[in-house]
């Protein structure tokens, strides 16, 4: 009796499972649209620290999500949810390259901010959607840094320069730039800038001269970007979804959001990060109030 019941239940389970698999999966299943987030400063590894939690994004992770979405037959289109001020050149370029290589339609949906490297990524998508008040553009390259030669001089601190290779310490914060060094660095920045402008012009189907005119480093509000051709549509998530449906030729879609799986220790990392932040804030406040009450004299003489 036991064997009979077990066999019967097993047969029923397998039969019903097979019927469901044949009738309710694959072709009958609504097509998926993947929403992949790009939030925070873009860098190769992202920010993963016990002390600092700046909320950056790793280009390696984004590339992995894009490749997963591209290889999944149920996913018919991709929306890049962008809320980023940009990031490093290489990290941004990695994502741009993969977005261009995707076989599926891609819509970039800019939320609060999508500037610099983040706008470069958005330009690689088939269409860009942004809110009228989104901050976008800021097409340019920056490599500024603080230089302390004057400050060190005032306190009698010397910089002992020991190099083999005259440009080895170019960009050191401990001495000022020579004219030839400045020209060298500037020429490198110009090359990156030219590449960026050319690629964005190519991505957006705009004249390079026009993009160069817009690429003065300043940001544009969504409405301004729409008027000068840097984005395609004004709107939010609904507009992005309608756009991707149109590009993918779909009437009915399901949405899958790709997210970083929070590990068990991420809670403690957050607590630690907040603790260090408030510790710093506390020290800063203490210094401020001491200064205000003339108990601590910090001055530059």
């Amino acid at each position, binding site marked *: 009796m036991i064997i009979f019941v077990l066999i019967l239940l097993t047969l029923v389970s397998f039969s019903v*499972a097979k019927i469901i698999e044949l009738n309710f999966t694959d072709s009958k299943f609504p097509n998926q649209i993947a929403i992949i987030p790009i939030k925070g400063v873009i860098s190769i590894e992202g920010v993963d620290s016990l002390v600092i939690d700046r909320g950056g994004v790793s280009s390696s992770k984004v590339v992995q999500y894009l490749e997963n979405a591209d290889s999944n037959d149920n996913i018919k289109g991709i929306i890049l949810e962008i809320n980023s001020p940009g990031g490093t050149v290489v990290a941004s370029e990695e994502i741009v390259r993969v977005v261009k290589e995707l076989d599926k339609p891609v819509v970039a949906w800019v939320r609060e901010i999508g500037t610099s490297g983040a706008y470069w990524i958005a330009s690689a998508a088939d269409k860009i959607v942004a809110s009228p008040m989104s901050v976008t553009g800021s097409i340019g390259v920056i490599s500024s840094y603080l230089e302390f030669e004057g400050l060190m001089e005032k306190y009698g601190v010397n910089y002992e320069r020991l190099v083999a290779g005259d440009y080895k310490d170019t960009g050191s914060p401990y001495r000022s730039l020579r004219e030839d060094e400045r020209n060298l660095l500037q020429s490198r920045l110009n090359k990156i800038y030219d590449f960026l402008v050319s690629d964005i012009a190519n991505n957006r189907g705009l004249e390079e001269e026009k993009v160069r005119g817009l690429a003065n480093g300043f940001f544009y509000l969504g409405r301004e970007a729409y008027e000068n051709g840097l984005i395609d549509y004004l709107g939010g998530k609904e507009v992005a979804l309608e756009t991707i449906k149109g590009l993918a030729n779909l009437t009915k879609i399901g949405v899958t959001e790709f997210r970083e799986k929070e590990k068990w220790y991420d809670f403690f990392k957050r607590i630690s990060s907040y603790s260090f932040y408030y510790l710093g804030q506390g020290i800063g406040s203490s210094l401020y109030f001491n200064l205000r009450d003339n108990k601590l004299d910090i001055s530059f003489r």
Partner: protein
Amino acid sequence: MNLRLGMTPASLWKRVFAYFVDLAIINFIVILPFQKVMQKLVDVEIEDFKLFQFFQGNLETAKILLFVSLLISILTVLYWAILEYKIKQSVGKVLFSIYVKSTKKEDLKFSQCLIRNITKISLIPVVLDSLYMVFTKRHQRYFERISNTEVVSKEYVIK
């Protein structure tokens, strides 16, 4: 001293281990067949605790998964109900020599077996139902009291 074969309430540990054995069997004969179809229905990466958001964006999938879950629950209950009705034992109970019997002076009915096992559709109901055992002398779950059944083991008792 005369000994006779009597029925005493089955010990808690026997019942718990018998339950785990039955769970392992159910996992193999009921849940495993549905694993492939579940994977096909939810074949994208979903972060922990984000299932609700996934279902919000995929109502069709949610309906089908609900149906599959219901089916698994029904087959799970039927496993216990049919075996206990027919042979007064499930596979786990056979291993630990414990039996289901009616507390009334009549044969066990199928409806009794269904009612006593209805909480096994899911983990939380069965845990809550089982907590009641701690407070009863005869180690009955709440739904065993409702269905007028109990789990006993045959032991020799002094007459």
